[in-house]
């Protein structure tokens, strides 16, 4: 059964085509990797799948629901760990977790139990009453991943979840996630720049570049088609070796300003 179906999806910002007529599908219980260089359209696609952006054209079905028409049903079906920070820094780690549990309507006893379990898992339980603004980048990332797992969604989106984490933590977190995938049949949709992660855990892969999906299949299929021996080589062969420039959005500029301001 296909839990995510995307048909001819397009997103334009003015004249710029961020996502250009892509189609793909993800099976229920599958671990799906969405790979592409910076600015390829990964995050824009994820935003459309998760009801944050409206598509310019094309159709999405997520757990049988269309995000444009039934955003509520779609939102009830997934959880997400964003690429950019999305924590409230003025709240403590525990308060951020509680907030998430409450707005996702997780029953109180389950919520308490899972929060404790997850905070211990990402080794932040001792720091639970500290303000997030005092956390390091890695700690924030760990908290963010833990938060996305509180409500055990049917589909879990992870937009570069392990960015900036050390190999130990990355390994630790992937073990937990693959475990959830096996035990609860949770569908995992993730993007990453670490090819070895995708190679290790993804059952199916789509490679996107310049808003177009240029190849999809299993790791083996991609390697065979590109006549390479690793996913990294296959990826480079498919997308070329040029370094991409990403236009800084107003948001990025503001973040940088704030960071400077804080120092």
């Amino acid at each position, binding site marked *: 059964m296909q839990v995510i179906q995307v048909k001819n999806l397009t997103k334009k910002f003015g004249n710029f085509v961020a996502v250009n007529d892509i189609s793909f599908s993800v099976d229920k219980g599958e671990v799906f990797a969405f790979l592409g260089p910076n600015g390829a359209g990964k995050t824009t696609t994820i*935003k459309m799948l*998760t*009801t*944050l*952006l*409206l598509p310019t054209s094309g159709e999405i079905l997520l757990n049988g629901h269309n995000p444009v028409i039934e955003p*509520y049903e779609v*939102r*009830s079906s*997934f959880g*997400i760990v*964003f690429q*950019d*920070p*999305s*924590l*409230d*820094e*003025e*709240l403590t780690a525990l*308060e951020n977790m*509680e*907030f*998430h549990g*409450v*707005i*996702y*309507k997780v029953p109180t006893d389950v919520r308490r139990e899972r929060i404790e379990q997850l905070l211990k898992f990402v080794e932040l339980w001792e720091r639970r009453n500290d303000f997030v603004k005092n956390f390091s980048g890695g700690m924030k990332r760990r908290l963010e991943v833990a938060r996305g797992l509180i409500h055990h969604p049917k589909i879990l989106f992870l937009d570069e979840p392990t960015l900036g984490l050390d190999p130990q933590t990355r390994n630790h977190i992937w073990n937990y996630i693959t475990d959830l995938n096996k035990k609860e049949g949770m569908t995992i949709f993730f993007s990453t720049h670490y090819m070895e992660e995708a190679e290790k855990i993804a059952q199916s892969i789509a490679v996107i570049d310049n808003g177009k999906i240029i190849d999809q299949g299993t790791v083996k299929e991609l390697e065979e088609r590109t006549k390479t021996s690793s996913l990294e080589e296959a990826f480079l062969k498919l997308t070329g070796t040029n370094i991409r420039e990403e236009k800084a959005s*107003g*948001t990025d500029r*503001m*973040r940088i300003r*704030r960071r400077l301001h804080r120092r």
Partner: protein
Amino acid sequence: MNTIYILWLRQLKRYSRSKARIIGSLGQPILFLVALGFGLGPVFQRAGEGNYIQFLVPGIVGMGIIFTALFSGIEIIWDKKFGFLKETLVAPTSRLEIMIGRTLGGATVASLQGLIILLLSSLLGFRPYDTMLLPLALVFIFLIALFFTALGTAIASVLEDMQGFQLIMNFLVMPLFFLSGALFPLEGLPKSLQFVAGIDPLSYGVDGLRGTLVNVVHFGLATDFLVLSAITLIVLGVGSYLFSKIQI
């Protein structure tokens, strides 16, 4: 229901934790109260209008409320930019609930700010005309707070970043405050100014406060209440619509 509560609680926690913000936003109203209250007091008295401090306090309370309330609403821009709004927007709750929780939180915070100013002004010699009417004054405090938080939310829903904030301060907050009759009686004004004061929502808030706190009233308490309630409902409706259309 729980969603509304947790969003409300978040606003309160953020407020009570930023002591600098609380004190900072008390500075300006108190300065106005002291400088204008004592500075213009004698002239006001000679003009036969009575005690200026008594007259001014409701206006200054209104000032404290609208600054805090609009700012609370506009905080959504920060949430938008620093990611937290995404976290709330992808949750399986209606955007109306999110909007209501936030707005109630912001309005509560702004009301508290107004109350603090009211308490502080009693140190400067302010005495309410009838303590029995204080609960009614609270109603007006909350209504003003609710209206301006909802207005801030509506504005923040369409603004992209904080660049527009200065514009709002100079072309919305300041005129709303200065033209509302917070500082001067609306009687005997030039027709044009009277007209402008008549379309300024804060005029009705200040008038309601003045009516309940010092028994001086221009439009009438019932009018104040009805006008404020009606425009609050309208702004809440428009704000919810704009908020529901946010894309990030």
